[in-house]
């Protein structure tokens, strides 16, 4: 998956307009972040990449870019990505 598509999935998860979530955003400061969206994020990563990334690994990633780095090859930067 390209990074831009992953960011759009995060917009949907956090109930934000398309394009609002950016790589440098601090995950736990994103509008809409809650214990429910943490579970939603675990589910999203499982659904899209079949990776079971635990809450600790997600909470240890400060920014969206750090989370993307944890997901490794599953997310490619792509030409349009910020």
């Amino acid at each position, binding site marked *: 998956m390209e990074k831009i598509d992953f960011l759009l999935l995060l917009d949907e998860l956090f109930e934000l307009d398309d394009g609002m979530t950016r790589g440098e955003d601090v995950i736990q400061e994103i509008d809409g972040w*809650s214990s*429910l969206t943490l579970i939603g994020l675990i*589910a999203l990563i*499982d659904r899209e990449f079949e990776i079971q990334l635990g809450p600790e690994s997600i909470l240890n990633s400060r920014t969206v870019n750090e989370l993307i780095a944890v997901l490794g090859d599953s997310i490619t930067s792509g030409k349009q990505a910020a």
Partner: protein
Amino acid sequence: MAISRSLGVRVSGISSAIPERTLTVADVAQIFGAVEARKICENTGVQTRHIVPDGVCTSDLCFAAAERLIAEIEWERDSIDALIFVSQTPDYVMPATSCSLHGRLGLSKQCAAFDINLGCSGYVYGLWVASQLLAPGNVQRALLLVGDTVSRIVSPEDRSAAPLFGDAGTATALECDPDAAPIVFSLGTDGSGQDHLIVPAGCFRKPHTSETSKRSEREKGNIRSDEDLYMNGAEVFMFTLCEVPALVKSTLKAANWTLESVDGVIMHQANAFMLNHLANRLHIPTDKFVLALEAFGNTSAASIPLAITHTWSNRSPNQQLRLLLTGFGVGWSWAGAAMTCDKMTLPELVVVPDNALSEEQRNAA
């Protein structure tokens, strides 16, 4: 996973009982506000929960379910050789609630009775133990009473737990039948998960003090004491992602079943978001996947038999059902069963009025 088969055992009937009193989304909104209540209830899939009045116990609900079942299947009380009570909300630290229930139900002195302390996985573990006890000429009939009243150990101001849990008690009758299809079990445990779903204080590891019972603000504004249930929802979800798909696959494989050959998949009714995610991951057809949370919430150990009652109580007892059951959660503990139900009596859901329960309690005391 531990694989086990029970031969020559038939599940003759299952009945479920709930208290009459309900709490709804409107009650959740009163505590957490309308916006948050909507989000929580959309996620959990729970609209209504049945909650016991003060002082009413799991055993009272199980008693009502057992009385109904014994009447419907017309078992003589002295023909019951074993009584097992599975719950994490017993009447007392001691004696075992199964002994109290044995007395209330008027069973014979030749009947064995004991408790099993398990929650979300407890119904399947109870089926496993009960079905393993049965043998012709030995223990021929067992009554398995499974339930919880989690509402009594939850802080009403803890949004991670309070809006989710409801109360229920169930009764399952098992007996020797040489013609019965084998029941196949798959079971597992991971005790490293114990701290994520726990009532930390009030028993022997951390006994009750005035401090342990004091409610205070914890993470994200949730208010509870150390004697209230703590649930780390993200860790619970992660655990199910890691273990439940493997549990479903190992149970099917051990029984030599496929999803196509199953009439119903009944998972522990944890919450709708989690169950729908698991169903998608496992490609379980929606017409076979049982969701019975909306009117009851998560009823812990009772959720699987309650879902069976809710889904199939109107069917003909002669209709054969091939059911895949999976219980998973607190412990971490998990168990699956592939069970063919034939000639199984499923009485309609028993709704126990508040006043009947108090009378019941007076009689029990």
